[in-house]
């Protein structure tokens, strides 16, 4: 364990975090130098991220959503968004898109400072979000990138039908794989895919252990702010890569150690001051004020024990694992099962289950202005969960990467009111 103390005012990170940071930086470097290395560059989305498949074609892999959030964390996204708006994009639309387009307008310098090449292939994994379609159409229009659509149908009835699975598999066979072959020049080898998928499963097992460790009291992890780092490798360019498997092994051992020592989560300022409130959070985090937002939680002794955002790139804690014995079907099921592709009743069920299994005191919804997929209808989620669990829910509003939509005072006020509300309720029950 790192022993950097808070007194030195340095940010505390675990070993796993450093590993993860290294992986991300290395990947950005690979992407930046792909042309020289004679590699092609692919871009796809986190929900429906077919990383194992893309690796079969030796693509250097970009995920524009993570570029946007990395730029947000580094406070660069604000300018990018304004550049995009000046270029004609509406103030009402997704700020990930605008951040990406703005970044491209200024030479596409990535979050690590290296300029990134335009993708050779846009794998438009149309999973759980309408905006994805327009995002890649916009990039294609401006920069002439080859695009292939993978339509992942929505689970309107709360289940995956054979027709839905067959549709996705057929598209993979007839459109996605041939296009990848043509662009990369690499022939598809299904056994290679199987190997990657087997590797993925090892990582998935450990990720689930880590996420479910929050069922302990105190929780050794923060299942939202902390989980953002944990899901990184799984949801991005590293699922199926040995480095990621190693990362999750290290991570799990760190978490196991914390459980044994009865410790709470690590925060940027050191060990968590002490678990007073256990929350489930629905909705993506804010990236531009990520640390400040997190601090509002641990300053009050709040730990997030489970979140829905940590399932946006795949739901693994309800049993799904990549299945190498039926690779394409399994990839289809993976895509179809991502959180934002679940219907409303399923989302509410998941939240209620988390509230129960993780012994939460309440639900917090972080409603993101940019993201209609998550946000439209969250007020109903709030009331339904309150109704079904009898526990209080709170509602704050912010955005993904547009700093103009994060008002610390407003959010702090609402959070503090919420925590005090829970505290008062507890005292009333005890009396």
């Amino acid at each position, binding site marked *: 364990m790192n022993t950097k103390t808070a007194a030195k005012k340095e940010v505390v990170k675990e070993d796993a975090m450093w590993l993860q940071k290294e992986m991300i930086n290395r990947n950005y470097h690979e992407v930046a130098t792909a042309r020289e290395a004679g590699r092609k560059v692919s871009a796809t989305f986190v929900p429906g991220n077919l990383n194992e498949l893309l690796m079969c074609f030796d693509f250097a892999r970009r995920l524009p959503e993570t570029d946007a959030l990395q730029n947000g964390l580094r406070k660069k996204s604000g300018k990018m968004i304004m550049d995009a708006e000046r270029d004609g994009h509406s103030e*009402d639309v997704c700020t990930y898109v605008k951040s990406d387009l703005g970044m491209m307008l200024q030479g596409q310098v990535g979050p690590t400072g290296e300029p990134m090449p335009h993708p050779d292939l846009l794998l438009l994994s*149309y999973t759980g979000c309408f905006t994805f*379609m327009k*995002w890649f159409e916009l990039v294609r*229009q401006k920069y002439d990138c080859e695009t292939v659509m993978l339509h992942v149908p929505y689970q309107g009835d709360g289940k995956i039908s054979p027709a839905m699975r*067959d549709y996705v598999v057929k598209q993979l066979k*007839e459109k996605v794989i041939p296009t990848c072959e043509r662009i990369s020049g690499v022939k598809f080898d299904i056994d290679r895919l199987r190997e990657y998928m087997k590797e993925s499963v090892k990582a998935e097992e450990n990720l689930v252990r880590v996420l479910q460790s929050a069922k302990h009291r105190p929780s050794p992890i923060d299942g939202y702010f902390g989980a953002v780092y944990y899901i990184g490798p799984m949801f991005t360019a590293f699922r199926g890569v040995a480095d990621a498997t190693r990362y999750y092994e290290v991570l799990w051992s760190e978490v196991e150690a914390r459980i044994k020592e009865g410790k709470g989560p690590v925060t940027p300022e050191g060990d968590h001051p002490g678990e007073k409130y256990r929350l489930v959070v629905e909705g993506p985090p804010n990236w531009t004020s990520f640390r400040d937002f997190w601090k509002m939680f641990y300053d009050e002794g709040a730990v997030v024990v489970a979140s829905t955002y940590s399932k946006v790139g795949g739901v693994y804690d309800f049993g799904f694992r990549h299945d190498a014995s039926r690779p394409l079907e399994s990839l289809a099921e993976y895509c179809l099962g991502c959180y934002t592709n679940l219907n409303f009743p399923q989302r509410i069920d998941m939240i209620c289950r988390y509230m129960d299994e993780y012994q939460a005191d309440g639900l917090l919804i972080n409603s993101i202005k940019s993201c209609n997929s998550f946000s439209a209808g969250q007020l109903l989620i709030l009331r339904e969960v309150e109704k079904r669990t009898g526990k209080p829910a709170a509602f704050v509003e912010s955005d993904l990467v547009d700093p103009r939509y994060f008002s610390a005072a407003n959010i702090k006020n609402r959070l503090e009111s919420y925590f005090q509300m829970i505290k008062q309720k507890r005292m009333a029950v005890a009396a």
Partner: protein
Amino acid sequence: MSVQDIVKRCETLFEDLEFNAVKQWKAAHPGAKAIGYMPIYVPREIVHAAGMLPVGIFGGGDQLEVIQGDAYYQSYICRIPRSTIELGLTGKLDCLDGMLFPSICDVIRNLSGMWQIMFKDKYVKYFDLPQNYDDSTGGAFYVHEMQTLCGDLEKISNRKITDDDLRRSIAVYNENRRAIRELYAYRAQKPWQAPTSEVYLVLRAGAVLPPEEHTVLVRQYIGETDKEKRPQRDNARVVLTGSFCEQPPLGLIKSIEMAGCYVVDDDFQLCQSMLLDDVSLEKDPLQALSEAFLHRSAQTSSKYDEKKEDKGRHLLRQVKTRGAEGVIFAAASFCDPALLERPMLLEILAKHKVPYTAFKYAENTGQMAPIREQTGTFADSIKLWSAA
């Protein structure tokens, strides 16, 4: 019936948020059901073939105060879902036995799930339209989706939908589509004879009337208005696009015309004109509907354009075939499909030197002055500076 009578009837139907026309139809067809559908497109033929009335739901418009509906949505989401919920919660949609939510955007998508929770006794289906245009892939998925819908409606109505039923309904809607094409062609030819503020009402009547009746009404309107001598103006001819889901208030359409424009094409009621020509009666009916949608349908933001070159092609064709001089891009506030698409379309229009202007509205926009100003200036600029 004079043209004024026709328009008055259509206006009454349009303003009636109690959906009396639907109630009357149900009373006249005891036991028959009515199924609502939201924008942009569903194959209404299937509902019709099940012996049911398809009812287009376009929100509550500017006359509906939204009080309960606002409890479900934050301020940065468009108005149509909240006014639709308002209609539902105030009992105005009780005459509907089910609702279809096509895949248009995430807001409507999520609304389908909310509807399942809020109105547990109603049939609800999210209708996923294909984004892959191969008959054997996207087509197969789409046919399966339609088969599922057929099966669900059969269960509700307790009677089988035969291929003949489907073909009969396709024929009915083919005729309706033809009538609408005639209407659009007529308007483009003589826009002063068919002001869009009237044409719009005639189109909206198609949301609540049985298609057979609507077809007659459309042709009646064309016939009657052609008899009248209506004053011609020196207006700019424009295509109005982007208003395919949440509808602008009637006052906004009137304001655009008052400001000096003839709207010679639009996408207000895409459901009625999504399929560009007749659906074949020769083959398997669901197969025919699938092929028509995959290969012979309009372009709109919620449909993926497979090739980069395809983007904007439909819009440019509209401009060309209708002899339009410019494009007005009118999008509902917060509308992801319209607003994300807009920069691409405007770029293409610019490349082809088609003048355009763009603004946003809400279904209950009350301030028309800024729109009149902007549209008026646009119309003037077209007349002053475009090549004759």
